[in-house]
């Protein structure tokens, strides 16, 4: 969600504000006073700790006593640590495995709800969106109850004892199901907003020309929505890199972290802090940042290409 915001709207309204500004110029300290509370907290609680994390990543530090300069040692240790790669791979797996089907279904549902076939849009829209407002932890717990081996709802209905959450090869797919369930409504509403912004006359022109529903979808709707779809996929990737609650609450037992086989990469940051390896935790975090920056860069390039077209 975050990276998309461009500065294009900045220019609006500047001219009309000149008049007011002339009047206000006398008190040149005033705007700084308005900004300072936000800025002071932002520097103290966000940017300061961010730079401190960067600084820490070059030291061995246990939270007390002296810290030892290790240069790039922490980063090398992270890169050589097989668990880091397992968890990176898990996280990327969660991104692709849930985002692709979720985007397709969310888009399909948006097309359906937006079509002339459907009345009661005001019922279906909030209904499909609703899982989004359920807290992640609550959703993960309900899924845990549903997919439990001995006391699970699904196994009880089927009369089986399939180890949905204890066999990690199955568990990773349950995590994917949870991600799809909770995320679907969000993207559905966003795609629906995009679809309603398509000029209806374009659609009507296509209808008049005797174009079938499928052709309209393939030649009008999807090309117009192409960039939104790509954008959604990449933004979802950035959010997925920060995944933590879903796999751990769903698969981890009684609030413990999930086993490495299904763990996302943020787990490594948390584990390092809990064992007081702050330098390692910071280095892991910044490695994650590099990954996110790479995805964002990819997104940026993609959009340049889209705009060139």
């Amino acid at each position: 969600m975050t990276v998309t915001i461009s500065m294009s709207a900045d220019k609006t309204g500047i001219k009309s504000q000149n008049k007011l500004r002339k009047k206000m110029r006398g008190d040149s300290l005033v705007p700084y006073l308005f900004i300072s509370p936000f800025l002071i907290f932002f520097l103290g609680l966000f940017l300061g700790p961010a730079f401190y994390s960067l600084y820490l990543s070059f030291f061995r530090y246990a939270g007390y006593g002296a810290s030892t300069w290790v240069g790039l040692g922490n980063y090398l240790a992270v890169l050589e640590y097989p668990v880091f790669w397992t968890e990176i791979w898990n996280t990327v797996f969660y991104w692709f495995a849930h985002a692709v089907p979720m985007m397709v279904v969310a888009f399909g549902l948006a097309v359906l709800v937006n079509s002339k076939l459907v009345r009661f849009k005001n019922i279906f829209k909030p209904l499909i969106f609703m899982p989004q407002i359920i807290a992640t932890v609550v959703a993960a717990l309900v899924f845990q109850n549903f997919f439990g081996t001995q006391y699970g709802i699904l196994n009880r209905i089927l009369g089986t004892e399939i180890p949905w959450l204890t066999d990690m090869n199955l568990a990773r797919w349950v995590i994917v199901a949870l991600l799809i369930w909770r995320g679907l409504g969000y993207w559905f509403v966003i795609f629906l907003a995009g679809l309603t912004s398509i000029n209806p006359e374009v659609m009507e022109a296509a209808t008049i020309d005797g174009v079938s529903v499928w052709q309209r979808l393939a030649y009008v709707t999807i090309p117009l929505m192409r960039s939104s779809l790509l954008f959604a996929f990449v933004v979802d990737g950035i959010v997925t890199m920060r995944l933590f609650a879903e796999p751990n609450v769903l698969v981890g037992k009684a609030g413990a972290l999930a086993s490495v086989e299904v763990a996302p990469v943020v787990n490594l940051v948390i584990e390092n802090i809990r064992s007081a390896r702050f330098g390692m935790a910071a280095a892991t975090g910044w490695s994650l940042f590099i990954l996110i920056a790479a995805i964002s860069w990819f997104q940026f390039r993609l959009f340049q290409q889209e705009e060139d077209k």
Partner: protein
Amino acid sequence: MTASIRKLSESNSKPRWSNIVSKVLTYLVLIGVGILSIYPMIIMVINSFKSDQEMYVNPAGLPIRWTLESYGKIFQYHNGLWINLINAIIISLISTVVAVFLCAMAAYAFAKYRFWGRNALFALLLATFMIPPEIIIPGQYILFARLHWINTLQIQILPTITPVLGLFFIRQYMIGIPNEILEAARVDGAGHFETFIKIMLPVSSPVLGAYAILQFLSVWNAYTWPVLVATKAAVQPIMVVLPQMVDPIVGFLPVWGTIMAGATLATLPILIVFIVFQDKFMSSVVVGAVKE
């Protein structure tokens, strides 16, 4: 022109069999998805009316014995799960009020004043969007540990009170507010802060409300940071406690009845607010995401 086109296209689509079939299929798909969407919530509520013991025997069906026993247990678990519910409410409410106020104040300056460094500062703030909060955790943890704030409520509130998204979101709205309104107030002799409180805040209330919803939900939902820094029951929010609730005697078995009762209590207020303000909810999500 468009009216005649509409008539034409309507006359084209007389009820044909293919049309009826696709209509039925469409509704079937939508109803199916709708059921999948609310089914987990339904089992959550239904299972909250079973006892913990019944959940081991009958997890799937309707309660054999409808009981409020699990809700009663909420008041007994640890020192009472209601403490954790109240913690979550305190944390989310304070965070929302403070964050919206700080963002609105800064947004007002960025939107309506010209000052040295304005654009550079704003660009810099936006650039920090790229930094995922998770990587700051080691730095934040040490900072708060030095202040001896581990296991407090403020450690869960403070890192959430300066959301750059909120600043951006509110500033975009404020730019669109006509200056004449502000000028009138200034002419009447209102001070800068007075103008902000008495004119700007009320006029911006739609965007403040929309952002407040986003902020409240994101703090209510938080897990990564609270699970790390709140390890004592007295300061934990409900989201941290719920996954840890196990049978006090056996040790590892989740007490599903009590968990579902707690989950229902943690969900119901938000669900009600959502049903009442659904359009506002959904549009604030969309604006938060696709505003360009």
